[in-house]
């Protein structure tokens, strides 16, 4: 009789502990989900804003990854037209040390109402950042002396090798240029 009681109380104890564990795990999951939700909704996290000096660190990474940096804006028709090519490149080459960075030149007050809804609608997977630096005359020549300032424009670089393009791309054209640098 005593032993039966012992067993029952053990079972009871364990199930209690299990429930507690479950509750903690559930809570942790909830917090993680909440965090994800917050970051998903926080425009500053989804589209970080940089001035040119801050952005330039992303344009000069010296490692074994090839970076494809595209300057675009939601109001730029040819930019929108070529975005799927950049998205496909980012997906197809995700295991080949290739990274696409989409630098939007949208007006900063349009990020929440225009850029993020555009990203959601088109399921943009590449990293998107905002270049918020109005004195473009000071930084356009630093990106390329050949750049008039028209978008779309693209940089493809890996280490010290670098090419600048003031033009639109199809996926095939983009892949051809990328392969030259890989």
């Amino acid at each position, binding site marked *: 009789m005593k032993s039966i009681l012992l067993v029952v109380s053990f079972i009871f104890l364990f199930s209690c502990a299990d429930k507690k564990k479950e509750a903690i795990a559930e809570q942790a999951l909830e917090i993680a989900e909440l965090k994800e939700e917050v970051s998903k909704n926080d425009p500053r996290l989804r589209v970080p804003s940089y001035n040119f000096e801050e952005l330039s660190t992303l344009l000069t990474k010296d490692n074994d990854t090839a970076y494809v940096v595209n300057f675009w804006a939601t109001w730029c028709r040819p930019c929108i037209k070529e975005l799927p090519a950049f998205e496909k490149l980012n997906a197809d080459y995700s295991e080949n040390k290739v990274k696409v960075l989409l630098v939007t030149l949208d*007006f900063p007050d349009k990020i929440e109402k225009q850029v993020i809804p555009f990203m959601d609608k088109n399921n943009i997977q590449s990293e998107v950042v905002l270049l918020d630096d109005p004195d473009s*005359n000071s930084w356009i020549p630093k990106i390329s002396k050949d750049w008039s*300032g028209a978008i779309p424009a693209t940089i493809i670089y890996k280490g010290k090798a670098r090419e600048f393009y003031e033009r639109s791309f199809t996926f095939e054209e983009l892949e051809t240029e990328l392969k030259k640098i890989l």
Partner: protein
Amino acid sequence: MIRKQIIMEIAVVLIVIVVMSGFKTNNVEFPVEGTYRIGDVAADINLMNTDGTMVSYSNYPDAKGFIVIFTCNTCPFAVASEDRIITLDAEFKGKGYPVIAINPNDPSVQPDDTFKLMQEKAEAKEFTFPYLYDESKTVYAQYGAKKTPHVYLLQKESEKNIVKYIGAIDDNVRNGAAVKDTFLANAVNELLGGKEVTVKETKAIGCSIKV
């Protein structure tokens, strides 16, 4: 035999020199096709204004020069510049440098840039300057304009219009209230003062020309 060959070679070199020097004089006399650079002669234009009249530089015998701005109806940078373009015309037309706005976009590619919508824009914003339609798409290409807005400041020198400044209106396309450096106005004022333009070329983000 060898002597003949040498004579032939000399003849070829001489011909090449003569032909090349011929091209050189051509470049001095006539505007360079393609992309205008500072100091080039800009060819006259003959484009339709939103009021239906044709406009040429030669219609302005008293002008000292022209503020030529490639712009369009809807590019956010062009729209953000509209009030500044109106102000530039108000400030400099009386001093001899009228604004000439040219829309180079092809409405079949950019449907917001039809002639009719240009007319509506000119009326709604009460443009005080011609807003011309580059229907044949030859003018923007000849100038080498790449985007809207894109400015070419011309000065009349012995009946020729010489390119004196190429680039942006100022250092903040997005926000006229935050401008620190008025590149274009500075250039016009320098020309008015009989001086050489100090900042001859600037860059700004703009919408690529849709053709």
